[in-house]
């Protein structure tokens, strides 16, 4: 029997098999492959089968095998196409997930999500609207819409996308940079109509959120479950309501439709979108939280800045207050003796005063002039304390010199002076004039103001890195409050002469990098201690 088909021959040339195409040359050498891939679908092979006599069993069996094979092959091709589609989808979701997992910018997340839904390289829906739950969790509000408004715009957009040949990531980046705000504005009228109170349990959006599943709406204009206003706002009778839920929190609703092409949304589309909705909801929530966190941080930064400004203001005001207090105290200390001097001078000018009165007035003038001199001395000492002249000095020698000056005062007040000086004292790093002033001031204060003192001891001693100069008295112990007041400048406990004296000592010693301590003595009385460094330190200057 002559066969039309070349299926039974081996090593065929291209001219003998018209079905073998370029790139399929391997079929010339493999009869088995050629038979399976080409001959079974070749019309000549079918006709050859029909030419086999009907009573030949082989014809019947080969026909069955051929049909079964073609059916299985069709099924395999279908499965292959499905797998390819799913593979693309997984790749696409992976690409999206990467962006959604890393982005903290809400607008960027929305750009990726909305582009993925509406792009042909993504889910290929015509339009999408995102509704978000407001911060008070009272309303769902239209947030953004993406897609064409009409057929003309649709063709224009799709043509642009086709020609650009951008990947999904590039499309979403472009959307984020140049189209996001214009798309929001473009759909403003529709978005305004998409506000739904969350307590409205009958609304299809709230139903989707409550039931945590997507709802495919069909025949929307006649559907009793769909708000007619919603149907007319969207202008389509077929759309998908996709709830966005993250960790049991309702984030919003994704509405999508094929407004231009009217293509039906299939259950498979719905399933794919549902898979996509989970990471989108999570990414939106995270980005929203990050945005709020950022706002809170910004508020904190501003609050801190204000606080810092206020602190600086307080410091400035404190400085001004100190200056004011200093000025007022000096004015007070000058005005009192001046008033007395002037007053007595005027009284002297009156001829009615007796000789004895005149003498008394003159004595008062002399005393008050002396007070003015003290004021001047204190103010100048304060000024000098700002510019110390440091060097190594023998503290014992300094103590001897100062106490020697004060002997007349102590004698006048019946106070015994004891000197207890350490013979091995090292030289101390100090401003001789200022430390002399401090020692003089302390002894003077104790002798003049401290009640019940009849013995003062001036003592020097050495520590590890320090030398100590102490003035000890046997008077009444000072209260803690008074100790503090004694070293606070211009407190109202004394006149200027002593009001500035001890606080000035404290200032001078702080500038020396040393301390000034007033403490109780175990045996009774008070101890005024100056602790000095006996080595030079940079910060002391």
């Amino acid at each position, binding site marked *: 029997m002559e066969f039309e088909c070349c299926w039974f021959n081996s090593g065929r040339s291209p001219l003998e098999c018209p079905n073998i195409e370029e790139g399929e040359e391997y079929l010339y050498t493999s009869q088995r492959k050629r038979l399976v891939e080409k001959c079974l679908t070749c019309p000549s092979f079918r006709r050859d089968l029909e030419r086999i006599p009907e009573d030949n069993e082989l014809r019947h069996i080969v026909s069955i095998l051929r049909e079964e094979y073609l059916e299985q092959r069709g099924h395999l091709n279908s499965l292959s196409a499905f797998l390819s589609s799913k593979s693309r989808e997984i790749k696409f979701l992976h690409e999206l997930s990467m962006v959604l997992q890393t982005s903290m910018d809400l607008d960027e997340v929305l750009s990726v999500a909305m582009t993925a839904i509406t792009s042909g390289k993504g889910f290929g829906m015509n339009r999408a609207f995102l509704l978000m739950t407001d911060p008070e969790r009272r309303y769902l509000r239209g947030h953004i819409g993406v897609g064409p408004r009409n057929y003309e715009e649709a063709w224009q957009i799709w043509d642009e996308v086709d020609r650009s040949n951008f990947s999904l990531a590039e499309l979403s980046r472009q959307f984020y940079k140049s189209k996001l705000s214009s798309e929001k504005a473009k759909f403003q009228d529709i978005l305004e109509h998409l506000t739904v109170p969350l307590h409205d349990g009958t609304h299809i959006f709230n139903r989707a959120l409550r039931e945590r599943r997507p709802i495919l709406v069909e025949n929307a204009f006649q559907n009793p479950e769909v708000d007619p206003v919603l149907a007319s706002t969207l202008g389509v009778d077929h759309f998908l309501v996709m709830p966005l839920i993250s960790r049991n929190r309702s984030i919003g609703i994704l509405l999508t439709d094929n407004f231009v092409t009217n293509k039906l949304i299939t259950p498979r589309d719905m399933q794919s979108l549902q898979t996509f909705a989970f990471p989108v909801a999570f990414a939106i929530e995270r980005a929203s939280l990050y945005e709020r966190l950022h706002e809170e941080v910004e508020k904190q930064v501003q609050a801190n800045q204000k606080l810092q400004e206020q602190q600086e203001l307080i410091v400035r005001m404190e400085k001004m207050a100190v200056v004011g207090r200093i000025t*007022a105290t000096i*004015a*007070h*200390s000058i*005005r*009192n*003796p*001046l*008033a*007395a*001097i*002037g*007053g*007595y*001078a*005027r*009284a002297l000018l009156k001829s*009615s005063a007796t000789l004895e*009165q005149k003498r*008394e007035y003159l004595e*008062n003038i002399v*005393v*008050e002039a002396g007070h003015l001199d003290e004021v001047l001395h204190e103010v100048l000492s304060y000024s000098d304390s700002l510019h110390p002249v440091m060097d190594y000095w023998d503290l014992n020698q300094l103590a001897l010199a100062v106490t020697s000056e004060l002997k007349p005062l102590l004698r006048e007040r019946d106070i015994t002076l004891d000197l207890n000086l350490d013979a091995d004292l090292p030289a101390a790093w100090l401003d001789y004039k200022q430390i002399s002033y401090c020692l003089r001031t302390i002894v003077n204060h104790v002798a003049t103001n401290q009640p019940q003192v009849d013995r003062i001891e001036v003592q020097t001693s050495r520590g590890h890195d320090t030398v100590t100069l102490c003035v000890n008295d046997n008077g009444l112990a000072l209260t803690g409050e008074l100790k503090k007041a004694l070293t606070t400048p211009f407190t*109202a*406990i*004394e*006149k200027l002469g002593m009001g500035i004296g001890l606080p000035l000592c404290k200032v001078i010693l702080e500038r020396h990098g040393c301390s000034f301590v007033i403490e109780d003595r175990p045996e009774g009385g008070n101890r005024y201690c100056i602790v000095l460094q006996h080595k030079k330190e940079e910060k002391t200057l």
Partner: protein
Amino acid sequence: MTRILIVDDEASIRLLYSQELTDEGYEVDAAGTIAEALALLKEKSYDVALLDIKLKNESGLDLLQQLVKERHDMSVILSTAFSCYRDDFSAWLADGYVVKSSDMQELKDEIKRLLERKAR
């Protein structure tokens, strides 16, 4: 005779004010502390008290509050080297306020004004 009480911790000021006001024809007593002032107030009544604000460790404003409560018939003049107390609410309780000066004319005028007001 009009009696005036001077309360000031500065001895020279007390003496000066006492002499000047005595020359003006007033009967004058002087105290250096609040305790001395209260002791004198127990013994005598005064028409005018001349009160210094800074009294060493005490405040004349404390005495002022006490006098306002207990001595309604006595005028109180604050006399101080500070001008800033004019704005202190506590100082507003006083009938007069004079800043210390070598020229005592302002103080004398203020005393006269208060005595005239009291006489009306």
